[in-house]
């Protein structure tokens, strides 16, 4: 199977989304999944979504994308991070 492509977005695509992307990548690796996790800014997000397998959402936006979407705030607050990483991993396992 091709490497999973996961997107993460925040206002600038530089601060919180990069932190979450790096955390998700590491937690997925711990779960045996080697994924590409990229951070983008919210305004550009819709251009990248077509190529992505999943979206880790930090900011609730106006649009709903037609790909599996996960709770990115969990990786910032720590609350529910493991459970969310399990859910993402489950999408790509088997």
């Amino acid at each position, binding site marked *: 199977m091709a490497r999973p492509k996961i997107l993460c977005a925040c206002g*600038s695509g530089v601060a919180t989304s990069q*932190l979450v992307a790096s955390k998700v990548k590491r937690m997925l690796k711990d779960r045996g999944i080697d994924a590409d996790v990229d951070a983008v800014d919210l305004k550009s997000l819709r251009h990248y979504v077509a190529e992505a397998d999943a979206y880790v959402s930090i900011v609730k936006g106006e649009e709903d994308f037609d790909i599996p979407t996960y709770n990115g*705030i969990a990786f910032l*607050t720590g*609350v529910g991070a493991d459970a969310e990483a399990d859910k993402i991993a489950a999408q790509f396992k088997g």
Partner: protein
Amino acid sequence: MLGKEIIARELAAVDLDASNCNEVFDLMGARFKRLGYVNEKYLPTIKAREAEYPTALLVEPHPIAIPHTEADAIIKPFIAPVRLKEPIAWGDMSDPSKSLEVRLVFMLGFKEAKSHIELLQILIHNFQQQRWVSRLYEAKTADDFYQVAMDMDWRHD
């Protein structure tokens, strides 16, 4: 990597009297500029950014805000820990239409794109240590408050 020295004693504040985030920015922004940490771009960009993409995080037991803006407004990197006199409504990062009651604000100034990710990771790791967060609330003076901030675990998971 940047060290703890970027938590600046001269930028730490307790009992800041402000009724909304823009007042916090006005008060602290003036201090940052006067002491040479930011240029004139800081105040307008931090207000605009916060208005569009709010930065309060629902960590337990109390929400914490992490306002920050573009590197080109920053002259010298810093972490300014601020405790407000009273909690104020601050936009929730995860849902801009909602607001959280915030008394702790960590104002961040990063000069280059790379260094901030590790710093943010360290901060987030520490925001999850409830004992440390409680001590920030309990600190009596600006000196105590600063000491607690400096007691941060300078690593992340």
